[in-house]
């Protein structure tokens, strides 16, 4: 099932990317349709290819080691620590972007960034509560 989904996503992604190329050849400038086709095509293709790679790795002899590495408790702990640190750095960068946006009078990006900064601790508290109830 996962294999079929991987193939289907790859094919859809390629069709969308080809549609984008055709749209580009028919119009001089990049229009919004091309941007949407490009983004959706690239996302579908990347997701499908990642799925197929995952299946290939798990099916091969090398895959056993790959699966062990994936499920290894130390690696999971490292990933969690790295994810948390990445989140902190991302939030700092978003904060810096919001300040710069505000300074150059770009109110919409500034408000979006501030919104993300406000939402982050709310999501954190909600997920903490969710996992606290589960564990």
């Amino acid at each position: 099932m996962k294999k079929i989904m991987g193939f289907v996503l790859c094919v859809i992604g390629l069709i969308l990317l080809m549609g984008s190329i055709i749209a580009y050849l028919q119009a001089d400038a990049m229009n919004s349709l091309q941007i949407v086709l490009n983004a959706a095509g690239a996302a579908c293709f990347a997701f499908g290819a990642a799925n197929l790679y995952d299946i290939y790795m798990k099916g091969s002899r090398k895959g056993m080691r790959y699966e062990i590495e994936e499920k290894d408790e130390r690696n999971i702990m490292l990933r969690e620590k790295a994810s948390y640190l990445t989140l902190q750095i991302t939030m700092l960068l978003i904060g810096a972007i919001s300040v710069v946006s505000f300074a150059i009078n770009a109110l919409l990006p500034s408000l979006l960034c501030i919104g993300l900064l406000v939402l982050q601790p709310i999501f954190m508290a909600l997920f903490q509560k969710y996992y606290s109830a589960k564990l």
Partner: protein
Amino acid sequence: MRNRIEELRKQKGLSQDGLAMALKVSRQTIGSLENERYNPSIQLAFRISRFFGVKIEDIFIYEEEIS
């Protein structure tokens, strides 16, 4: 926490890679355990003790930290 994993592994004539495959963990995890940089979960500790046929408390030596 100190442990005797390296000593027990060598007694069995296993490489870090061999032990890692037997316990279904990465070789780096075995390295970290042997260097006492990482403390295993209770499940892994049980798997290690069953693999070597030794009681957990004979493998892992808990020493309370003096602050």
